[in-house]
């Protein structure tokens, strides 16, 4: 009805200026309205065809995949990564290399220990705040997956990895291996004094002179788990009760920070640190070295995509990058231990069979998830006063 009145009003009267203005306004309004309708109708149809859900993007396969990801990532422009990796040793080099490869993507990151990364992401998801794209950590993707905030994904590069280094469900893939050993200050511990076996730690000389982290993913609970698994529940428990009498100091900080306390001379021995951290500091001239106590606790850093990632295209390019040989090269160059089977460690003796130790006890993320609370309970009841 009103559309009929437009020509009527416009053509029928040519009177005063006021009417003229009103007519023009009407016409402009309706023209704009129709233009918008025409504009919108096919557009919304097209958009529906074009827009893929995070899940669809995550599971893309085939030859067109890379192009779709790059096109999408150009629009997204950045990605947010919650990491447990050490910022100056690894996160920044990876960020630089990735941004060089894809100059249209900016990598932003937040660093915390395993449980902190998970709790942060989970509480954000509870608040329906979908900011984070990528999560990594020894158990972080597994824990976040159990909380229902992870997305299965497909990366062609993961085909090159053995089954134990990628999740059967497709929630995560491994980027680098970890071997947790003793670390010590070479000025405070003489070469002949260095503990070589678990029993050497019970020497009264070390009472009050050792420190470990409280972190679930790589600290005291993990070492307790390794001992209970490798020595068996009975013998393991008996050993740990003796160790508890050695008053081991605790810290809530990262293993990297604990090793720095050892370097500064606050404690001669860190019980359970990443051996490549000791190597990196040693190369920089710090008075520190590592010593394996067999079997060495072995685990790896797993990385995955978050369910409602706001930048899924960029995130998948990033995942592809860190699993690919190009990305694994960055890990290798900074003396981390690449997970890719064809990428060796720059310093071979950091890994089992490299000359310094043979036996390692692989604790998978699933085992860590199932037994983690038990190990924390043991830690809290026996090692805390």
């Amino acid at each position, binding site marked *: 009805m009103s559309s009929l009145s437009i020509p009527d009003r416009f053509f029928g009267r040519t009177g005063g200026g006021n009417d003229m203005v009103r007519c023009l306004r009407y016409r402009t309004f309706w023209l704009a309205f129709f233009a918008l309708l025409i504009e919108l109708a096919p557009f919304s149809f097209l958009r529906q065809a074009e827009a893929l859900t995070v899940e669809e993007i995550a599971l893309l396969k085939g030859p067109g995949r890379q192009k779709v990801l790059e096109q999408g990532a150009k629009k997204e422009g950045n990605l*947010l990564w919650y990491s447990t990796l*050490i*910022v*100056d040793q690894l996160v920044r080099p990876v960020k630089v290399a990735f941004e060089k490869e894809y100059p249209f993507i900016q990598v*932003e*990151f*937040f*660093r*915390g*220990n395993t*449980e902190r990364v*998970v*709790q942060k992401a*989970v*509480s*954000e*998801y*509870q*608040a*329906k*705040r979908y*900011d984070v794209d990528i999560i990594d950590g020894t158990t972080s993707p597994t*824990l976040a997956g*159990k*909380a*229902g*905030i992870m997305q299965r994904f497909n990366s062609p590069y993961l085909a090159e990895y053995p089954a134990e280094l990628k999740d059967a469900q497709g929630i995560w893939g491994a980027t680098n291996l970890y071997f947790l050993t003793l670390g010590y200050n070479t000025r405070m511990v003489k070469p002949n004094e260095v503990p070589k076996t678990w029993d050497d730690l019970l020497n009264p000389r070390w009472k009050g002179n050792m*420190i470990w982290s*409280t*972190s*679930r993913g790589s600290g005291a*609970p993990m070492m307790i788990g390794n001992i209970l698994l490798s020595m068996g529940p009975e013998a393991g428990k008996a050993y740990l009760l003796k160790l508890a009498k050695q*008053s081991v*100091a*605790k*810290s*809530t*900080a*990262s293993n*990297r*920070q604990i*090793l*720095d306390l050892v*370097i*500064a*001379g*606050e*404690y001669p021995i860190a019980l359970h640190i990443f051996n490549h951290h000791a190597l990196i*500091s040693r190369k*920089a*001239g*710090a008075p520190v070295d590592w010593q394996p106590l067999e079997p060495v606790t072995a685990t790896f850093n797993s990385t995955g995509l978050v369910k409602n990632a706001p930048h899924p295209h960029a995130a998948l390019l990033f995942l592809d990058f860190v699993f690919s040989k190009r990305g694994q090269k960055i890990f290798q160059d900074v003396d981390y231990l690449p997970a890719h089977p064809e990428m060796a460690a720059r310093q071979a003796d950091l890994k089992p069979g490299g000359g310094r130790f043979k036996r390692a006890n692989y604790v998978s993320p699933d085992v860590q*998830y199932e037994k*983690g*609370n038990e190990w*924390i309970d043991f830690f*809290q009841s026996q090692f*805390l*006063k």
Partner: protein
Amino acid sequence: MIFSRSDQPRAVTTFPVLRAVTHVGAEMWVLICVSVITAYLVLPPLFSVIQTSLFTTRLNGELDQFTGKYYRDLLGGLQLAGPLLNTLCFSLGSAVLATLVGGFVAWVVTRTDTPLSGLGYFTAFASFGTPFILYTIGWLLLLGKAGPVNFWLRSILDSSGPVLNVYSLGGMIFVEALLWSPFVFLMLAASFRSMDPSLEDASATCGAGVWQTLRRISLRLMLPAFFSVILLIFIRAFESFEIPALIGLPGDIRVFTTAIFLDAQRMPPSYGSAGAFSVLLMLIVAGTLYVYFRVTRESTKFQTITGKGYRPRLISLGRWRYAASAALLLYALVLLVLPFLIVLWASLLPFYMQPSLEALSKLTLRNYSTAVHYPKIADSIKNSVLLGLGSATVVMGLTTLASWILVRTKLRGRWLLDLLTTLPLLFPGIVMGLAILRFYLIVPIPIYGTLWILLVAYVTRYVPYGIRYTHAGLLQLHKELEEAAYASGASWSNCMRRIVLPLLSPSFFGGWVFVFLLSAKELSMSVLLVSPRTPVVSVAIYELWDNAQVGELAAFGIVWTAILVSVSVIYYLFARRYGVQMQ
């Protein structure tokens, strides 16, 4: 109307009665507005805390089943008896020690003729706005087993092991008390400044010496101020996390907060024990506050600013003033200079080494170039400054009105306002952060991940601190000044603007600077509420420590301390020039 409800009829003349009819409406409106705003800020966290303490949590963070288990664990299980005892010793020890140190410095600076008294202000300002973690790291480097203090002590005492163990209850109390002493200084300086000198003069006339007057007159007048300061520090130490984590845990001194932190490593995290802990803390604090209000109820006893000239006289210390300025120097040295120097030293090294000739050869500026290139630093400084300005202004505006209602009016229902403005004291920061996070998950106000949620959090948390300033300031301001204004025909707004606010300005500015500095270093709530895109200084520094970037942290910390020092110098010059009192 007011006359009939007033229990102090002596002060009321016919003029105020006439005035009362016209300004009662304004009072009521102010009461309603302030109450609604405060209720909006305070009640959601309270609800959330109680709710959390009664339910188990699922892995995805949702509340699961109703349970009383957290209370049973807390009260029934002897597991927490040790932490409870440690917590009480730690909190009480730090509160008393901080009050002694800070109170002494405040008295020397404000009431005596000691040279260098400006130094007290610099030290307090500059150290107070710096995140605790920076100084804690500094003191740990100084006092640690391998640190220079132990090294010297060892060579003096000819001992082989570390002489001083900082990782002990004593070490925790020492560091926490030093950290809080500027807080005591800032709170007590205002009260010392605005004390009625006639009582002291009377005492002096009667033949009492300086110490006797101090003990029998000045300190007694300051009783409510002292008590509230001890109470605040007790609460803050009770809920603090940095010192217990950095110093307590390595030394096996477990307190409530670290016990809860370790519990949260279980999956799903048991937020319930944190909730139950907070409810317990609330009960303890509520009991203490009850005592506090009993003490300050007869508030006229402590009114020290009356219509008579009230600028207190400086006490001449004679020869002792040099000893007093030496004490000020020592305070500045221990609180500011030494930790600053050792952190500066750490910032110049690729990895930390004890000060030695060998280490000199390794000095580098690499950490500074990284700190400059690290784009978050400029952002976090900007955000922290913005938040400090915002929260200080909002808090002081809100609390000035609130205290005026509490102190001056006889409105029914003002007890509610009193309660609302005190409630935030009961929340440990980490719990309040969590509660605010959870509240904005239910309410469709999309401020999570922005600076606004931090502003809401800071304002809520610091209302009780602001109100200590304005409340104490108004208590000391005798009613007769306002009555004189009304008697001369001033309106309510006129009287506020021309009498109350100017007289209150020392407390107002003191409180403003105080809240600004508190916001600048807030960590426990911010750590939960910031997003990686809205960084603030305290969280950035905490994360650098956690991630073992101590060199970068030190470089960043030095830059931030330099900024705070220049801000306080500017404030000091401004205040001196325009006659704003430095409180």
